[in-house]
């Protein structure tokens, strides 16, 4: 992360700032909404389940009351009693008795459409009923039936029997019923006189459930305390396996509402338990169907968040670029400055910190540039000023005319040495004073050196021998003015010294893209130590006047480095007793503009 570019950091930061709150807000909204919906559904389903169970209770309470009625009717008790006696075990009731019982039972079942039939089963196995005789068998063995066992086991308490198909009905298609039943005991003796069994149609449930909206009874079932199914209604599509696992779930006998994981799916499970009947109304609602609306909301939220994220991302890219772009530009310029190119400026577009940075940078490079120029140009200017002073003191025209007079006087007297010397002096003066161009063709510099040598030769006579060894094709190459004279002067002074004769070689050769100018003498030379000192002093800063020794050489060396860079400069080598060589290395440059054949300004 530390190595990331500013642009990358800003982009990441922007995107995080946008994405995190947006996602959090979306998530919280989604969960809040989902929870609310689930809670509301749970509440309403609990209410409905409770209502269903209360209605069932009411119906069953009625049936329980009905099941007690025979105990309070003497005639019914008498008839049942009669057929409980062992002697009547094989005797069937008379038509009159059956008629009486039919009327009594019909009275019980009067105006109760939910009741299929009420059976009073005497101990000898005869079944008194209100059902039409064409649909009944009055004497079937009921003792092996499951419901019979349940009734017996209840010892006279009322029981609710789950769905079953009674074997005494002779319908073509046996229907399923559930029943309320109990043993009938003689009030005084507590003797068992028979069984009353009220068969109820499943319509009971259907009627109660008809008020419930379809989506709320996705899977509504009613079971007893032992989780035996009484009724089931399914309002939504669930596959068989899920249905099966729903039916197999064993729920505790209490009322509650909670999420349950059944068959790999989450269901909101609401149970209402009736203490009276022991029946449980169970509602399973798949959470996924509950959250159908929520999912739509979530998808919409996600979509909006995505759109925002894209827009924000584009904006982030734009801003990150806008903010970092001037910095990147500044960095590039800074690298150029590091490499020594001080002519750098950045456009300042804004007034913020970055704009101020840019301004500061511009001021800084400007200042550096100015200082560099100042240091370099002050040197040149000072020299120009010195020359200007010299010029203002002495009218050059007067000097040249005087020299010319001397020249002509000498010629008049055939004193050609004097003429040559005066002419050489005049040329030297002109070259030194008149020219302000910094670069001149090598040939001009060499002409000037030749003039200087000519004058010196007049002084030293035969003792001084100077050899010019200059390759023809380097003569027109530009060189900085006044480079060679200090070297030649140095070579003459040290080269001859006290010797009888001294040689000075001045050579100019081109090697590749370098121009090598060498001045060598064969004088006293230098020891390694002296060479070391001289080399060190060449790279020292120029002193502020005073100490002048070696100054000219140092001046040359530093001028070269200043003008052309560290690859160029002045090199010194030598050997004790065998002279010294000074080599100037220059870049080979194009010919100078404006220098040509009509170079008359000189």
């Amino acid at each position, binding site marked *: 992360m530390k190595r990331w570019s500013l642009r990358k950091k800003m982009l990441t930061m922007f995107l995080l700032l946008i994405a995190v709150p947006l996602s959090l807000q979306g998530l919280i909204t989604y969960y809040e909404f989902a929870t609310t919906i689930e809670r509301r559904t749970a509440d309403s389903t609990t209410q409905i389940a409770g209502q269903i169970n209360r209605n069932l209770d009411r119906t069953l309470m009625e049936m329980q009351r009905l099941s007690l009625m025979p105990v309070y009717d003497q005639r019914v008790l008498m008839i049942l009693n009669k057929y409980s006696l062992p002697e009547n075990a094989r005797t069937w009731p008379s038509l009159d008795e059956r008629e009486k019982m039919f009327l009594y039972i019909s009275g019980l079942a009067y105006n109760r459409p939910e009741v299929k039939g009420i059976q009073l089963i005497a101990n000898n196995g005869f079944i008194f009923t209100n059902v039409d005789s064409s649909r009944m068998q009055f004497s079937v063995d009921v003792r092996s039936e499951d419901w019979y066992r349940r009734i017996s086991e209840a010892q006279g308490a009322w029981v609710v029997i789950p769905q079953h198909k009674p074997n005494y009905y002779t319908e073509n298609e046996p229907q399923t019923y559930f029943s309320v039943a109990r043993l009938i005991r003689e009030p005084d003796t507590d003797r068992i006189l028979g069984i009353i069994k009220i068969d109820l149609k499943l319509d009971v449930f259907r009627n109660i459930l008809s008020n419930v909206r379809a989506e709320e009874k996705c899977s509504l079932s009613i079971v007893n305390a032992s989780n035996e199914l009484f009724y089931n209604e399914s309002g939504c599509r669930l596959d068989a396996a899920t249905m099966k696992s729903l039916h197999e779930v064993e729920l505790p006998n209490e009322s509650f509402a909670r999420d349950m994981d059944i068959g790999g799916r989450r269901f909101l499970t609401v149970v209402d338990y009736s203490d009276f009947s022991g029946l449980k109304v169970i509602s399973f609602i798949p959470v996924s169907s509950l959250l159908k609306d929520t999912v739509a909301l979530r998808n919409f939220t996600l979509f909006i968040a995505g759109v925002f994220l894209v827009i924000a991302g584009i904006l982030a890219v734009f801003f990150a670029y806008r903010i970092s772009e001037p910095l990147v530009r500044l960095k590039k310029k800074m690298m150029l400055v590091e490499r020594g190119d001080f002519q750098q400026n950045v456009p300042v577009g804004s007034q913020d910190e970055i704009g101020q940075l840019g301004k500061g940078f511009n001021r800084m490079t400007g200042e550096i540039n100015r200082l560099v120029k100042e240091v370099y140009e002050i040197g040149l200017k000072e020299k120009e000023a010195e020359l200007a002073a010299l010029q203002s003191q002495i009218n050059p*025209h007067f000097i040249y*005319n005087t020299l010319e*007079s001397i020249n002509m006087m000498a010629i008049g007297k055939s004193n050609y040495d004097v003429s040559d010397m005066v*002419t050489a002096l005049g040329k030297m003066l002109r070259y030194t004073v008149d020219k302000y161009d910094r670069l001149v063709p090598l040939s001009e510099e060499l002409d000037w050196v030749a003039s200087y040598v000519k004058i010196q030769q007049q002084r030293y006579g035969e003792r001084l021998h100077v050899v010019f060894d200059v390759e023809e094709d380097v003569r027109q190459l530009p060189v900085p003015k006044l480079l060679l004279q200090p070297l030649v002067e140095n070579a003459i002074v040290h080269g001859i010294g006290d010797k009888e004769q001294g040689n000075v070689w001045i050579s100019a050769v081109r090697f590749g893209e370098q121009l090598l100018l060498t001045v060598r003498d064969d004088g006293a030379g230098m020891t390694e130590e002296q060479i070391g000192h001289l080399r060190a002093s060449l790279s020292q800063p120029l002193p502020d006047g005073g100490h002048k020794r070696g100054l000219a050489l140092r001046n040359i060396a530093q001028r070269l480095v200043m003008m052309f860079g560290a690859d160029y400069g002045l090199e010194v080598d030598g050997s004790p007793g065998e002279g010294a060589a000074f080599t100037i290395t220059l870049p080979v440059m194009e010919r100078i503009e404006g220098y040509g054949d009509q170079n008359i300004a000189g």
Partner: protein
Amino acid sequence: MAIKILLVEDEDIIRTGLKSIIAQLSGDFEVAGEAAHGKEALDYLQKEMPDLIVTDIRMREMDGLTLAAKVRERYPHMPILIISGHGDFEYARQAIRYGVSDYLLKPIDRLAFVTALENVRRRLEPALAARPGQAESENDAEERTVKGDDGRRLIRKVKEYIQANPDKDLRLQTLAEVVNLNPAYLSQLFKQETKVNLSDFITEVRIDRAKYLLANTDLKIYDVARLAGYQSPKHFMLVFKQLAGTTPGAYREEAQPQKF
């Protein structure tokens, strides 16, 4: 027929000096008239017709540039030679406008003055400049050719001279003097005889010498360069590296391993 010169110069000494230079030249030039300033020169021009005017710039009465302008009005092709103490660009520019032949700066270099006069003469007398004797006289007797054994003998001599003196002055003109041949011809003959450029041969001999010195002595690089004929140790090192493929120091290390 001598070329007649009108000399315009206000200082007597200089005028006398110029006259004496002109007098020393061949009889092709003569000072036909003298004037101390422009006015006088114009008066002279009323009566006489010189072939060439040599004039100073700064003079009393009328300066040289004004004179040049007036002369141009009458004689568009009259050669004018200006002598001036001023190197100022403005003067030079004006002079060019008036079509002066040359512009010499004081103090006058005798050689330059003579060359300028020669140029004028060539312009005035094309027939003279084209005379065949002219070119020959300048190249004189050094222009001799050699053939066969003679040539081989000379080249051998040159080679021997080079091999004997690798540290000495081996410029083309010096070598030409040794065998008394024209420099250009020597260079050509050498190439013809040996199929090698003279300068390449010299470099080869010098680098061989340097290798010998590096391998057999403890001389400093400066002295090796000097004794191999290189004035610049740096140049020597560059050339050595190019030809030997290694630096002089590395070469010595290889040649004298026991010393390192």
